[in-house]
């Protein structure tokens, strides 16, 4: 394996281990924490529980929402969580690689809502692509496709 391949694989492994450990830690809702971003706008611009910013508004009937002022003039904390707890299979690593975890689309929507509120747009990747796939590149491509729905939110 070329050396460039090692780090993403190790990083993915580290995240998987970290997530597995957090499930063992007696968490009340394992794999189902609040997903949270802080938006650099005042609460009245971020919305209310009954009126969510796009594209989160499409999830309105399926999620619980918390909106609160962030400390220290940092804007507004926007937290969401699916009303229906996802299955263990969906939140497993294979489930996430197959894009079966409902939290993934929720993370994407949360990030996009923040960006739209702050900048008026969601920055899109460059197009058309210049890359061509080799085995290592396919791993990076998959990680990139899932990236918006993964992470520490």
């Amino acid at each position, binding site marked *: 394996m070329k050396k460039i391949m090692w780090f993403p694989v190790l990083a993915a492994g580290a995240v998987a281990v970290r997530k597995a450990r957090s499930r063992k830690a007696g968490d009340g809702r394992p794999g189902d924490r609040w997903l949270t971003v802080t938006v650099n706008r005042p609460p009245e611009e971020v919305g209310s529980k009954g009126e969510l910013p796009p594209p989160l508004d499409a999830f309105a009937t399926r999620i619980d929402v918390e909106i609160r002022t962030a400390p220290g003039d940092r804007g507004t904390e926007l937290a969401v969580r699916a009303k229906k707890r996802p299955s263990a299979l969906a939140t497993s690593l294979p489930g996430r690689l197959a894009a079966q975890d409902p939290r993934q689309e929720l993370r994407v929507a949360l990030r996009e809502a923040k960006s739209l509120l702050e*900048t008026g747009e969601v920055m899109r990747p460059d197009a058309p692509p210049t890359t061509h796939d080799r085995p290592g590149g396919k791993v990076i491509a998959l*990680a*990139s496709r899932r*990236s918006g729905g993964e992470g520490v939110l």
Partner: protein
Amino acid sequence: MKALCWEGVNELAVEQVPEPELRNDQDMIVRLLAGTTCGSDLHLIGGYIPAMRAGDVIGHEFVGEVVETGRGVRKHKPGDRVVVCSFIGCGRCWYCANDLWSLCDNTNTNPGIGQALFGYETGGIFGYSHAMGGLRGSHAEYVRVPFADHGAFPVPEDVDDVSALFVSDSVPTGWMGADLGGVKPGDVVAVWGCGAVGQMAARAALLKGAERVISIDRIPERLAMTERYIGSETIDYTRTDVAAELRERTGGRGPDVCIEAVGQEAHSDGIGHLYDKVKQQLRLQTDRPTAVRQAIHACRKGGTVFVLGVFAGAVDKFPLGAIVNKGLTLRGAQMHGQRYIPMLLEKVAAGEISTAHLATHTVPLDEAPRAYDLFKHKEDGCVRAVIRP
């Protein structure tokens, strides 16, 4: 159009790729006037920076001419000559609003990868790893500039392309080391590395009032260039004991501020270099922190060490004890260029900062792999190779 693409570890090729498109209203397209090699490119070329894909266009330090603007661009129009900051900032998240532009929340289109590596993602950067957005780089005929009103700056008429080029990245990176390192009048500052960023850090320290600035390297041409164009003292680390020399020159105290401008592929002349290189090749550490260790040990009690060099992950034998027991402040950052670029363009125009001397070689885009060969092996006194489409 032609572009310089990463094709694998130590493989670069000039290829035909599709021209970039406007993807957002706040984008613009820039026609390249000049770009440059950067030491941080060597890390990704050599496979030390993760998450590259074959065909990625590299390059992140450039000056160009605006050819097309999106509907949301207010500050630029076709025909404008602009220098573009290597890191992309949205200008409105909390980090950008607080002048921490390289930490932008909204410009890394692959946030999950960056969060897996670092806990939180960085902002996006041109022509770098997919962990930092995977955006196209600037060694091409055209490049898309997202959030153009916040990341592109008009070049004063009396500043030529090559002088402006380095204000895209090298100059603000160096300035940031002195600024966030807290350099103040009367300080003695030591700078590890006499490449472009190290030279600019030394110049920034002098302009911020440092009493003495001492630059450390091993390449004779770079040491001579630093003395001539920057005005700092120098130490050739192959000819003396750096820590002892610094103690002697600082009345036994050690430098007040130590700036590391070397990065993850540091060299040294001791057995430690072999140790670090073996551990890096075995993937027991991702980076060789030789200069960081030396800076931490050399720094005076209660002083500050600022890490400007690019590091990817974990290092071995990190002297945490010295930081705690000497009461040091350790800080690092990717560069918050938007914070400094307008001011730095004025200083270049006023002749307070010289940058043109950094361009020791000029190479056409067709021969860009040769530019990186020259630069990597420091052949023919190469400090920076300018690449012109």
